């Protein structure tokens, strides 16, 4: 594995994933973007570009998951993360229910772009609730 836990912190207020903490973390992020840009710049068939990009993304995902798994949280951080993630999950479930209600109420076949808000809404709701939970738990204490 390439990424190291000490290069990153966990995202708490801006969704899920990692934030670079050191210059090595920043270089890691830039390298990911650089390889994707390189693949896109290659003069090869589009479906080959897609395959290479997909393989690269899968490799990065495995590395990022390994980094996140090796980040040790102390008991306070574990409790706060568990509560924040639970709250975010409930917000996303509620948002999905609202989205389904909206789609069925509209009563017509929705195209891809018309469906996008219904897909993005739960993600945004999850991010907002997770961030709010982290802020409140940090201030109020547990």
């Amino acid at each position, binding site marked *: 594995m390439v990424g190291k836990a000490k290069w990153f912190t966990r995202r708490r207020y801006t969704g899920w994933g990692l934030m670079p903490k050191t210059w090595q973390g920043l270089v890691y992020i830039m390298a990911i973007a650089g390889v994707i840009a390189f693949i896109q710049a290659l003069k090869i068939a589009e479906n080959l570009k897609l395959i290479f990009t997909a393989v690269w993304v899968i490799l990065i995902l495995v590395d990022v998951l390994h980094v996140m798994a090796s980040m040790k949280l*102390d*008991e*306070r*951080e574990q409790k706060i993360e568990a509560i924040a993630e639970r709250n975010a999950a409930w917000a996303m479930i509620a948002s999905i229910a609202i989205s389904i209600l909206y789609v069925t109420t509209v009563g017509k076949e929705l195209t891809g772009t018309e469906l996008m808000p219904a897909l993005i809404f739960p993600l945004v709701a999850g991010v907002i609730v997770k961030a709010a939970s982290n802020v409140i738990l940090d201030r*109020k*204490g*547990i």
Partner: protein
Amino acid sequence: MKTRIKEFRAKLNLTQEELADKVGVRRETIVFLEKGKYNPSLKLAYDVAHALKTQIEELFII
């Protein structure tokens, strides 16, 4: 819950970072413990008391 962690930490001349390293938690957790904004598990309370060379009852005041 009130704590006397800061008082005992000062007696041993330890920084929050040093105490955190001894106990195996983040410095932020020690900050929250000192402010009484986090109720630790029994194990953590014991580890902190042990690191500060005192008893749990001396350190945490309910």
